[in-house]
């Protein structure tokens, strides 16, 4: 999708509007400036550097895990962060952290990309799998519960898996590849579904500072289209074969998960693309609106405790993952879907006589301190 922008204009050579020396090679999606390839890398990287510095995303000496899915965002994030770390002496120890949900034909392929990144960027990689953590792959879960609600499992498990992986790596922070388009979309979706609590949180560049491992989004102001162009124009010179393979995979991953048909998410995505077409600045404006919404912070927050079973943060007796897992293991997959509180309480009385031992084995609890 970014290829159209990369092609030089047919109507004669245009000078780069930044350096005024080289020929413009692309129209920058964010500003519509016509600039050369070199200036594009420079502004792209410089903007991310500014975001990192201005928001104090990292402190010198920190260990940072980069959530790596093998998709375009996290691949470019891993590259750019390691580059900036070197160039500007952030003093960070960077790691790649991947979650293997166990989806055949989806994750196993993308993990190959991550493994190549490990070698190319020289970043140590840690893969945590649902199978190891929970004893279930997503394939097995879908086989058991069908296509309804499977996203609940995947989402809850991934969140915890990332935190657990980060704890294993003993990192201080987790950087994710969420880009400006993603955040703008989330702002709109939270308005559409009336979720004022998430609306107030979704534009924060650092989240979960009260949790075990804070997360940050260095690409918060980075346009998806530029993330697509960046490796394309950069890697083209270095490694054509890699780029080609990368793009083939990219096309595959840019499609929505077929298990989560969500009409208005699709509408919102499409809407943002339409907006960007007539006013590129709209994406940033949506984020800016999200940052400036007047939301009273007096809303009550659930009391933070720890899960009695695995020690993960939880506002309930058991964390959500443990409740879902219990349901799976007992053949009651509806457990934990919908209203949590009642189920959580009803659950504890008969856990002891159920196959509790097996559960605890399948989830390596107690070995990690959060």
């Amino acid at each position: 999708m970014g290829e159209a922008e990369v092609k030089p204009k047919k109507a004669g050579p245009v000078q780069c509007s930044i350096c005024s020396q080289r020929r413009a090679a692309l129209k920058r999606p964010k500003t519509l400036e016509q600039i050369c390839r070199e200036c594009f890398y420079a502004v792209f990287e410089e903007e991310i550097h500014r975001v990192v510095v201005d928001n104090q995303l990292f402190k010198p000496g920190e260990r940072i895990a980069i959530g790596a899915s093998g998709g375009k965002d996290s691949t470019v994030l891993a590259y750019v962060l390691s580059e900036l770390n070197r160039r500007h002496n952030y003093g960070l120890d960077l790691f790649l952290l991947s979650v293997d949900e166990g989806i055949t034909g989806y994750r196993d392929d993308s993990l190959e990309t991550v493994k190549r990144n490990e070698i190319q960027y020289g970043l140590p990689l840690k893969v945590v799998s649902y199978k190891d953590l929970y004893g279930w792959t997503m394939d097995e879960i879908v086989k058991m519960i069908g296509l309804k609600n499977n996203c609940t499992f995947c989402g809850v498990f991934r969140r915890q898996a990332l935190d657990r992986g980060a704890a294993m790596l003993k990192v201080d922070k987790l950087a994710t590849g969420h880009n400006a388009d993603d955040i703008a979309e989330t702002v709109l979706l939270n308005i559409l579904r009336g979720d004022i609590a998430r609306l107030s949180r979704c534009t924060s560049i650092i989240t979960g500072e009260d949790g075990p491992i804070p997360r940050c989004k260095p690409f918060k102001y980075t346009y998806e289209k530029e993330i697509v162009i960046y490796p394309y124009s950069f890697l083209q010179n270095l490694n054509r074969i890699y780029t080609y393979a990368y793009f083939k995979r990219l096309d595959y991953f840019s499609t929505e998960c077929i298990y989560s048909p969500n009409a208005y998410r699709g509408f919102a995505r499409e809407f943002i693309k339409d907006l960007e077409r007539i006013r590129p600045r709209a994406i940033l404006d949506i984020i800016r609106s999200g940052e400036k919404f007047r939301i009273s912070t007096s809303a009550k927050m659930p009391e933070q405790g720890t899960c009695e079973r695995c020690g993960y943060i939880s506002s309930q007796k058991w964390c959500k993952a443990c409740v879902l897992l219990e349901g799976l293991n007992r053949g009651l997959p509806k457990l934990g879907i919908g209203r949590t509180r009642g189920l959580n309480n009803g659950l504890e009385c008969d856990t002891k006589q159920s196959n509790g031992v097996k559960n605890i084995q399948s989830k390596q609890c107690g070995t990690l301190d959060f």
Partner: protein
Amino acid sequence: MACGAGNCQSGCFRDDDDSVVTEKKKLTNRTLSSGSDIDLPNHHNLCLKCKVNETLASSGTVSVDGDIGRFCFDCFRGNLFGKFKLAVTSNAMISPTDNVLVAFSGGPSSRVALQFVHEMQHKAQKNFDASRDRSLPVFGVGVAFVDESAVSRIPSDEFDKAIQDMKSIVSNLAPPDKAFHVVPIESVYSSNGRDRLEELLNAVKDVTGKEDLLQHLRMLSLQKNAYENGYTKLLLGSCTSRIACHVISATVKGQGYSLPADIQYVDARWEIPVVLPLRDCLAQELNMLCRLDGLKTMEVLNSPHSGINGLVASFVTLLQEENPSRECTIVRTAGKLTPFHFNQIPESDDSNVHLASRRRQKKFNLKPNESVPPESYCPICNSPLSKSDHINLSSLGSDQTNADIFGATCCPSCQFQILPKEPVSMEHFYSLLPQQFVVQAKDRSFSMQRQLREQIQDFLLSDSEDGT
């Protein structure tokens, strides 16, 4: 609640023979096929509310969808009027001493607003005539139409015809008499308005910016007219659907901070407070009422939105089709944002008014420190500026022109989509602005500079400016 509104002359009675009638109706119930009542097989064609009359969907006079079709006409109308009445009373929108100017565009929303205000006034008049001491005056009503023929592509004879129609609509309403004002949009200028307005709009390159500027000018001309003719409230027909679109488009334009100012029942930041009594009514419902009630509307004059506003309008329409409560949800979400201190009718000194008007104020969740008025507003769109926006003045050098200062006092959204980028065109644009804009900006820039001098140190020390 709806039927307590006093106006519902419907079958919503609950007397003893209610059940008998219902039974009878059930027996004579013809099984008409209808798409909207699948879940109520027993009461197939009976109104959800009064359970006596046929539903709108089954009466076959109109094609309806959603919940509307499950009411009978009387209950539907009563419900809609109830929402209007509740908004008026619980926000103290109209007091007996008020003189209300209804902005009438000729479209269905403002047509219903006019009708409902008229019915309220009519009832107040009846009460007045019947009461012995006549202590409660009846509020006055006037109607204003903003004539945009100066900037519209629609031929002026169509405007003239529409104005004639509106005149007859207003004069055909039962007494008390209502004045009808035709307000030319160019009346924001004291002289030579037509040419200057045209030039001003031509100086705005962005389609959306042009449309929004026109919208602000419309408000300015209404305010001016209301002020000059002694009105005390300006009543707009903005409905849920319209407000939902505004929520999304304001978000898209980066106006998240000022957004809650625009979407409340009351907006008293203007000289003449603005009230939105149809905030809880859907466009679909209002269209339906116009059709069923035979309220004439003049759709010709409402040109479709373009640019960002057009995209947003079709996006919201799409969402509403997918889920009929989406517009309400959008407005409800935005309603949870903290409103401003001016989003309520200012306290009046007149104790007489206090006693007279039933006042059921809704509680605002204003935090004490937020009830302090914001120091500055954008001189173009009049939106309150957030702290980080009104320190922009400090970045100006000493050789600043009036146009520069004006530009710096505008909100980022207006700066981007309305103000010309090049200094020369900016000077030109500034010279074409109506006097009100300029005066407001000057007042504000003085107070801002004073305030800046006191506060700038704090701002510079804190490192929390967003890195834009």
